[in-house]
Each structure stands twice: as C-alpha cells, then as structure tokens.
C-alpha cells in the first residue's frame, strides 16, 4: 500500500505522516504528479488560508492533477474545503469536486470553532466501526454547507457537512490524525476502501 501526502507547502503534514506511521504505513510527501498519480491512496491536507493555498496548488500544477485522480483521495480540513466549488475565504475558486460552497461561521458563535465535536448521520464505509456521535477534533472558521454529498454532519451554529464524498473523493473537516483512536480508525478505513 503506497500512500502519498500531497506536499504543496500548506499545513502541518508531519502529524498526518506520523498518524500513518502509527498504523504501520510510511506515507511519502510529494508534489510530483507522477508519484501522486501512481499512489494507491492520496491525502490532500491543508492548513492556513484558502486563497494562498490555492495559489500554491496552482504553482505546482496540482489543481489540474487532483480532480482527475482515480484512486481514493482524502482531503483534510482546508484540503476538503479546496475540493468544494468555492470558498468565501479570500473569494477562492475551488477544485469543484464537491458541489457545495464553503462559508464563514457568523459571529453568533466563537470563530474559529476549536475543539472536540460530534459527527452524526454517518453514511460511508469510511466510518466503519465508528459510532454515531463519535468525537472528532476540529479547528476551522469556514464550513461546507449541508448537501447531497454529505457523509457526516456536525452542529455548530447550525448543522453543516463535516465530511463529504463524491465517488473516489472523500473530504473531512475534522483532523483524523489528531482525533485519538476514532481518527486512527478512520485513516485505517481509508486504507481499506
């Protein structure tokens, strides 16, 4: 099983690499299209600001490569948001893999949402062995709206999509690599898809 973490300069990828190591997998970091295309599994991470992350993605030409991948791809946090149609953050056009918009929480709640919240309405083999209302760790100011592609929802200000799926593309708003044993189970499930 070869796992490649897309390394385009955005985010704390070390934690993801370590999380796979705890599962016995040496995940490679790469921005090389050939290596990414050849991997069995691709992780698309992202931490930071949407428009600058998208700029870095374009500089390495990966904005063209990622939507065409055929193997299971998992976007995490900002990675998931960049896979959507677009984000209010920096008025950023996304990769359009998920047919949904990314918006900012209002000031009715504390922004960013930071901490452990539950995931419900679980609808994917990605959540095998993970119970309804399991806790996951989230840190984000922007969210994907509820939509047909939701495979998990979370409540903060309102109910939003905390995980998405379109064919071989998966996205999670939470950080499985930081979500204790439940997060590790999700990563293991991703390897077994």
């Amino acid at each position, binding site marked *: 099983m070869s796992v490649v973490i897309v390394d385009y300069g955005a985010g*704390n990828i*070390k*934690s993801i690499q*370590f*999380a796979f*190591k*705890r599962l016995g997998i040496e995940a490679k970091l790469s921005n090389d299209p050939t290596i990414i295309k050849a991997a069995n599994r691709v992780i698309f991470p992202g*931490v*930071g*600001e949407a428009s600058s992350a998208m700029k870095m993605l374009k500089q390495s030409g990966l904005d063209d490569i990622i939507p065409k991948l055929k193997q299971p791809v998992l976007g995490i946090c900002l990675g998931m948001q960049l896979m959507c149609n677009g984000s209010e953050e920096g008025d950023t056009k996304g990769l359009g893999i998920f047919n949904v918009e990314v918006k900012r929480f209002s*000031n009715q709640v*504390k*922004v*960013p*949402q*930071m*901490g*452990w*919240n*539950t995931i419900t309405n679980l609808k994917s083999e990605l959540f095998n062995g993970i119970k309804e209302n399991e*806790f996951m*760790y989230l*840190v*984000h*100011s922007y969210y994907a709206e509820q939509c047909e592609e939701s495979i998990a929802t979370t*409540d*903060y200000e309102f109910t939003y999509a905390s995980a998405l799926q379109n064919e071989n593309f998966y996205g999670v708003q939470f*950080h499985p*690599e*930081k*979500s*204790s*044993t439940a*997060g*590790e189970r999700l990563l293991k499930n991703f390897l077994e898809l």
Partner: protein
Amino acid sequence: MLTKRIIPCLDIKNGRTVKGVNFVDLRDAGDPVELAKQYANLGADELVFLDISATLEGRKTMYDMVLKVAEQVNIPFTVGGGISSIEDVDDLLHCGADKISINSSAVKRPELINELSQKFGSQCVVVAIDAKQIDGKWMVHLAGGTIPTDLNLFDWAKEVEQRGAGEILFTSMNNDGTKAGFANDALTKLSEIVNIPIIASGGAGSTQHFIDAFERGNADAALAASVFHFGEIDILDLKKDLRNNNIEVRL
C-alpha cells in the same frame, strides 16, 4: 455540540518535565513523551508544553521532544515559551506542533501576531496573557509575570483578536498557585469582549473550580498543571463530574 476542553500543562526544561509528577505507573516520570501519552489515554483533550529552557542547547532539545510527541501522541498539542519569530514557529510546526503560544514577544512587537496568523493561519496562533489585578485593574505582565506593563488585559485581548490570534490563554497571576479557583469574573468579561476561544489558567484546586470556570467564567477550555501531575484530580473522573453537571465534555 462543541465540548469544553481539559488541558494539562507540562513545563519543560532541557527536554524534561520539571516541577515533578507523581504517576506511579510511569517508567520515567520526567519524560514528557511518556507523560503526554499517559494524559492522552486518560482523556486529556489537548496538551500544552511550556519550554522554560534558558539555553540554546535546551531549545534544541525541545525540538527533538516536539518531534517525539508528534510521533507518538494522537491528540493536539501547543508549544509555548521563548517563541519570537516566524522561523521559530515554522520550525516547531515542522516538528509536528499543532499550535504555538506567544506571550512577551507579542507584547514587545504586536505585529508578530499578524505575521504569524497570515503565514500559518489563526488556528495555530495562541496568545498567552499573564495578568494581575492591581487596585481593581487587570494589568498584563511579562516574562513569567515578573515585569509589569501598562497594558490592560481586556484592551490587549481585543487587540490580539483583531490582529489574528485564534485563541487566548489567560493566566490570572492572582489565582495561579493558590488552588482557590479560576478568575471567573475576568474570564466572563473576556468572553464578552472577544469572539475567539478562551483557555482559563491559574487556580485549579478542585472539580468545582472547573465547573465554575465553565459555568460562571464561560471559558472554552481549562488548563492546569499540579492537580493533574500529582494525581489530586483524575482527568477521567473530572470529566465525568463535569458531564453530571450538564457540562458537555468528550468522554
């Protein structure tokens, strides 16, 4: 529903925990990695490591420690102490830290908060504020509380939010070490003034103190050191008690 967080804080000097710990089932109670794993298993929601090394050698050892914690611990952790530049933060994040905490360096040069949040995102920038109530006014102090400033806690909190901080770690020096409870009035006011999460620190002595910090102080998280290190409060029991008091926690 977003839960309230319980955060043990470990003081690190030259790669080892100081102030001592009292866990019977640890092979090496001074090893921060072992302690971190223990706390993660006990149900801690996050960890904070505070580097109090005074030497360059001690700082370098800290990076090795951060790398090992990231490798072995599956919950988020923050690193603070002596961070004053983009390079410091870049290095720590590359070692696997999830968030960094700045304190004196932010007061000395507030633009640092803008620079860090623009480069790395607000989510990883925690601004720690140590304050002491003097004649009814909460005044910010630096260098572990030894140097007073003219800054008012609430003005400074508002400013750090506007500059892009993602979270505030507020330590009340009046309460720190007293085990008489958190500074709930100041916490309440902070929560009214800013719209980012507040971590309460200083004064934890009993379960009731945590309940008060969340219910009366409106804190989003509570941090403590000695009550956890010396087993005076068991994290799992604490979280069960919080839930029995209708405070949402991860169990």
